[in-house]
């Protein structure tokens, strides 16, 4: 089981994710069998920056003229989708919303990852905790 801590700060998700993927690659390397990896994102914040920026564009241009560019990034699981595409990971793909400093929440994620490793034969489980 591999755990990686990254930060998003005030960046938009689409701007932050390439750097986050790079950090993960430095820590975990490239997967040898991406079809047998489970991905588990934990964050209390992912999607928030894009949601607010997208709605500001709606306010500025009106709902009829808003730019949909950021809309897919308003969804919290867009980060896990990006990381899956970056590494070609096709196994289970979870996005947990919870305060990363809450050990009970993290413990739940670890247990689910372990269950998937045993039951689904995942060779690796990657837990990526995205802090603000």
């Amino acid at each position, binding site marked *: 089981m591999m755990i990686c801590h990254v930060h998003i700060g005030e960046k938009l998700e689409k701007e932050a994710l390439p750097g986050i993927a790079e950090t993960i690659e430095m820590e975990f390397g490239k997967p040898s069998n*991406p079809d047998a990896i489970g*991905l588990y994102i934990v964050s*209390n*914040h*992912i*999607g*928030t920056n894009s*949601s*607010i*920026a*997208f*709605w*500001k564009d*709606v*306010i500025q241009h*009106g*709902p*009829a003229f*808003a*730019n*949909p560019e950021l*809309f*897919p990034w*308003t*969804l*919290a*699981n*867009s980060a*896990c*989708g*990006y990381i*899956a*595409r970056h*590494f*070609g*990971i*096709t*196994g*289970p*793909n*979870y*996005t*947990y*919303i*919870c*305060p990363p400093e809450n050990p*009970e*929440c993290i413990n*739940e994620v670890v*247990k*689910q990852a372990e*269950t998937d490793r045993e*039951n*689904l034969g995942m060779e690796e489980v990657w837990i990526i905790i995205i802090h603000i």
Partner: protein
Amino acid sequence: MNNSIVITGIGVVSPLGVGMEMLWSNLLQSKTSLQYFADLDAAGYRNAYACRVTDFDAPPVYRGAWMALDATRQAITQSQIQLPENAGVFLGSTLGESMAYEMAAEGADLNPEDYNTYSLANTIAKAYSLSGPIQALSTACTAGNYAVGAAMASLQRGDIAVAIAGAAEPFSRIAMVGFTRSRAMATDGCKPFDANRNGMVLGEGAAIFILERKKDALQRGAEILAEVYSLGLSCDAYHPTSPHPDGRGLTRAMNTALESVRVNAGDIDWVNIHGSGTKVSDAAEALALKNVFEKNMPLLSGSKGAIGHALGAASALELAICVKGIVTQTIPPTPGFTIRDPDIDLDCTTEPIQKEIRFAINNASAFGGLNASLLLGSCTS
């Protein structure tokens, strides 16, 4: 038997009715909740058609939480269960209280994190003074299936004795604008697998289930509604919003669900399709169904023509429909499906069909390439 997990209670807040009986009755009559909304038109939305819950009042910024609480109350009542203090809460949602994010953008002094999926789950736990585990899953339009699957896993590990699991999604202006501007919305209704389908329709709602171990349910004399067998998950890892066109992700999700409990594809009697009504998503799902079932295609039905696409709550609402179908041994019709698409080459139900349902699959797919197939069935099987 020790690891068998069953559903003993359902609660539903849907655009076709608050309460399972009303939703089911309207669905069997092929009704749709699609409506024109003058408030959306007046606000300048290009698309003013949606499936909203019009008979449910709540403070706008707590609409998702109130829907989840109402559905939880219904589920507990039906289950007649005395919740243990360590019962777990497993909740899915795409955006949580979308209104809070919109208000934050408008300058309101609030922290959106106090209104996200975790906060919705926490609201349920607090309402019943529960100290058990909380899992909040934001896996977009697959979140309901994920939440029930996570509850099943927790029960099977022996972490808890009872789980409150499901999903909630209040009507989201962010999603309404986002999908409309992404040119993914239909104004003339969602038509799953239909030749004339041209997009999705946004919905909202909540569906919550009480899950427990079968032996515990039998011991306390509870009415078992359905058994939950397995959840198959996969990611296409292909595109931010489009599924892989050959349906490989959903194929893997369904096969995983089947193989993990050694059920044959030929034993599946019914698939509740994801059927969002978009050209590419339905085409990919059709290929996945053909990959898995080949010449033994089970009966197919879809619900988004009736209740719209409630995003994170969609697969939970449709799971509720699956459970009710299993209880009544009835497969509901597919509002919106009238003309077979020669490219898809599959039919959906057009009227209620009485039939023995031993095993059913509830399919869900989402932006980000997520696929989640939940396998469930009648408890006698």
